[in-house]
């Protein structure tokens, strides 16, 4: 039911784990199916230096989290905020229709992390 790419990011995510020295953290929860995603950011000169995630969720949610991190690396905060759910879904080679909502979650968590950073 999932593409090879989804399974690759799900089975061997590269960007997971708590970041002890994060500059910003954002959490988003998905009411529809209970997924929870936490994004950690290390930021320097308005650029994302390091990013990692922790996700409670299905294979689609975990792979979408990993891909979001992949897409954010080295981007400015503004560029990162422009990443869309569609970018993630396309990168993964299409998520099943029922799982599209999983790719929205990452963007929300990222937005919250960046807002959190700007506040401080």
């Amino acid at each position: 039911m999932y593409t090879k790419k989804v399974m690759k990011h799900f089975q061997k995510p590269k960007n997971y784990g708590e970041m002890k020295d994060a500059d910003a953290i954002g959490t988003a929860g998905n009411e529809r199916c209970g997924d929870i995603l936490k994004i950690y950011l290390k930021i320097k000169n308005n650029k994302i230096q390091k990013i990692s995630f922790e996700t409670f969720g299905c294979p689609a949610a975990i792979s979408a989290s990993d891909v979001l991190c992949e897409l954010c690396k080295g981007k400015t905060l503004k560029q990162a905020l422009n990443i869309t759910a569609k970018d993630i879904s396309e990168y993964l080679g299409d998520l099943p229709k029922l799982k599209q909502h999983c790719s929205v979650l990452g963007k929300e968590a990222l937005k919250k992390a960046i807002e959190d950073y700007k506040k401080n």
Partner: protein
Amino acid sequence: MKVYLDNGATTKLDDSVTKAILPYFNEKYGNASSLHSKGQEAKMALEESREIIAKKLKARPDEIIFTSGGTESDNLALKGVAQLHDSGHIITTKIEHPAITNTCKELEKQFEVTYLDVDKEGFISLHQLKNSIKPNTILISIMHANNEIGTIQPLKEIGEIAKEHKILFHSDAVQSFTKEDINTKKINIDLISISAHKIHGPKGIGALYVKNKTKLKKQILGGKHEYNLRAGTENVSSAVGFAKAVQVSNKKDIKHMKKLRDYFITNILKIKHTKLNGPKERLCNNINLSFAYIEGESIGALLDAKGICSSTGSACSSKELKASAVLEAIHLPPEYINGSLRLTMSKFTTKEELDYTLEELKKIVEKLRKLSPLGK
């Protein structure tokens, strides 16, 4: 290693079943309603099959109505009873299979339906059942073994309550048939749904036990097949396969599954924050676990990548994005509800397969917990 632990969904045909079925496709292919010898040959096989299934329930052959499966049997039982009335009250439970639940929802347009609660282990309360009975209650439908958590309801006691109040009693015994003893001579029961594909028989055939003289409104109209309760040319090959599957079922296989089930449960519960869903004394082939802080579909996908077939009741995995109604009904704590995993064995399951599953499952739970923001 390939390990199939989704026997609650469906099972592999027993070799003896496959062998028994085959002649009915291109040798003994007659229509059981035809009067010529080819037809009578099929008729004979059909009636022998009916007898074998009846005997397993200690019933009479004319009390067995072949259907297309458990779903149709459930529909025939509920609608068949209800539609003989203009209005009335039906009692069922919150943990029934969708074949019952959705039929009841449809019947709610015209009838009142009470859905009984269950306790933490999935048992109904006989007290609540008694208290739910009204003067216009026409039917009690309570499943025997639950398909998700393996809870076995006390049919005998329920039957006595039904008898005392002169209410018809139906049970969906699709999961328990041949695994638990059901003796229609000893318990008061009017209707029982069973299905072949859960017991190493073919898909697309089941039966409804209809106690002598119980009236039902026919649902599928046409010829006068199946004692005029279910029209359509009889599925003789499948009936033969169903009967063969019943015939080869035995106590030794049940013991084997129980032993493996308890071995697996004891060992898997060594993982921290793991819960057994359902009671300890349960359906012989059913294991249902919840792992806190991780999600069931992810566990299943990683198991599948290791060749292990399982199922889950998590919200993510369902088409409606809702957690299993059964797990909701037993009030599983929120951190456990989406981390459920059902493993259902068969007589073919081996200890080696379970050891392999235990080993892989431990690694998977650890891996997913590392990925999860919860429980830290």
